[in-house]
């Protein structure tokens, strides 16, 4: 059924890639602005202010390389072998052949709620984790749809982008914190020592810096969620391209949304990783802006339209 209009799916993938690029650019600009603001507040000459980004980048690298281990650890995922879960491993292997990916490590989370996630900074270091509930409650074609979605995250380098974004969010929060301490305790003293002429201008810069420090983490968070939602749509589209059976994933998503069991091992920090939002949230315009996943109905509708 997808064969008749493949152009549609390809178009959507291209469109999602573009959107992600725009969002990521915005994000980096926000971060650069923040470090600039800190630089100004602590009194560096303006051309050198962005240099402050360097220690934060080092911090970012460290978090980037350990993120996958942490995500698997937090969710209590156990690696499984071909002997333990032959069907699951076989499905992953076959889908990898179709996607041209190396075989990732396969993990199972002993939890009754059906859900799954993929992690790892690139396809060579990737892992796919599924819950016991997913294996028990889904039909083979539905499971295949979910696995194809997760492998698409790997193939599209979504996890790399998402890991980067999460690390950058952490950075933005850290910098905002840093900023507040500086404005209140350090830089205030210094500015009072200066001549009266520059006082007004410096006060304005302070004001901008403080407003920036408050707004930046919020903006960063909103951007993060927007990127995450785009990635989900993209993975749905390329997953459907891989299985040539969008209906399987559509039905799996409906099942996951209808499932009453909450995923106990998920929390706000790992929610964005999962295929279906593991946290039960109320619906509102504000919450929509801060949710990591697009509404299931919307995803199912798009899948059925392919």
């Amino acid at each position, binding site marked *: 059924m997808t*064969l008749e209009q493949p152009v549609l799916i390809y178009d959507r993938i291209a469109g999602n890639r573009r959107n992600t690029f725009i969002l990521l650019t915005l994000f980096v600009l926000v971060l650069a602005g923040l470090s600039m603001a800190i630089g100004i507040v602590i009194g560096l000459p303006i051309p050198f202010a962005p240099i402050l980004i360097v220690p934060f980048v080092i911090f970012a690298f460290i978090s980037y390389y350990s993120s996958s281990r942490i995500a698997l650890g937090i969710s209590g995922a156990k690696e499984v072998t071909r002997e333990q879960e032959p069907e699951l491993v*076989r499905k992953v*292997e*076959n*889908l990898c*052949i*179709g*996607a*041209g990916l190396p075989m990732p490590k396969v993990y199972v989370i002993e939890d009754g709620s059906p859900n799954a996630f993929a992690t790892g900074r690139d396809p060579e270091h990737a892992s796919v984790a599924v819950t016991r509930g997913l294996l028990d409650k889904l039909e083979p074609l539905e499971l295949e749809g979910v696995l194809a979605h997760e492998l698409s995250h790997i193939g599209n380098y979504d996890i790399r982008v998402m890991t980067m974004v999460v690390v950058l969010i952490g950075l933005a929060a850290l910098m905002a914190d840093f900023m507040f301490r500086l404005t209140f305790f350090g830089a205030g003293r210094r500015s009072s020592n200066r001549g009266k002429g520059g006082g007004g201008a410096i006060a304005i810069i302070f004001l901008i810096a403080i407003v920036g420090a408050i707004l930046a983490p919020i903006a960063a968070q909103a951007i993060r969620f927007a990127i995450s939602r785009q990635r989900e749509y993209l993975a749905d589209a390329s997953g459907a391209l*891989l299985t*040539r059976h969008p209906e399987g994933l559509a039905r799996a998503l409906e099942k996951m949304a209808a499932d009453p069991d909450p995923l106990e091992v998920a929390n706000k920090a790992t929610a964005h990783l999962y295929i279906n939002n593991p946290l039960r949230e109320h619906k509102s315009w504000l919450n929509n802006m801060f949710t990591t996943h697009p509404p299931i109905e919307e995803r199912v509708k798009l899948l059925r339209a392919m």
Partner: protein
Amino acid sequence: MLIVLIVLIVLLAVVIIAGLAMLGMYNGLIRARVRTREAWSGIDVQLKRRASLIPNLVETVKGYAAHEQEVLENVTRARAQLEQAGGAAQAAQADNMLTSALRTLFAVSENYPQLRANENFLALQKELADVEEKIAFSRQFYNRNVMDFNTRIQVFPSVIIANMFNFERFDFFEAEETAREDVQVSFTQPN
């Protein structure tokens, strides 16, 4: 004098930029071709694996259903063709023949309860089903690479490079249409 110099520099810059662009396009084509060949070897591995399972299967079936001569011969013949096939188009054709012959074989095997209970037979059937799935997926990956490569060597401006260095189109590994027909054949097979 100055004008001549400027014109020369501009011309030189244009030549260098054009040369670099061509180099980039050439490397891109080579990379796409290597990827496509690699994708083909992915199919080839699975086809070989499939062919290697056949003699064992034929022997097992013979033990219980020796008089299904024609069915068994079809399978053996398809396998031989697959082994001799050169290139994607021929291999695809032979593989489709083997798929249809195997389907008939498994449909016929329903009539032999003892064969159905044979562990070796069941294991082979399962493994062949897995190989078939792997072939389907590797075919998909290969065909996507072929589509990418064939498009590149036909669109402007990379078509210039492709013609200059004689890049040739790859054949698709086509199975969809014949596979669909085969399903019909195996359904009408009287049991």
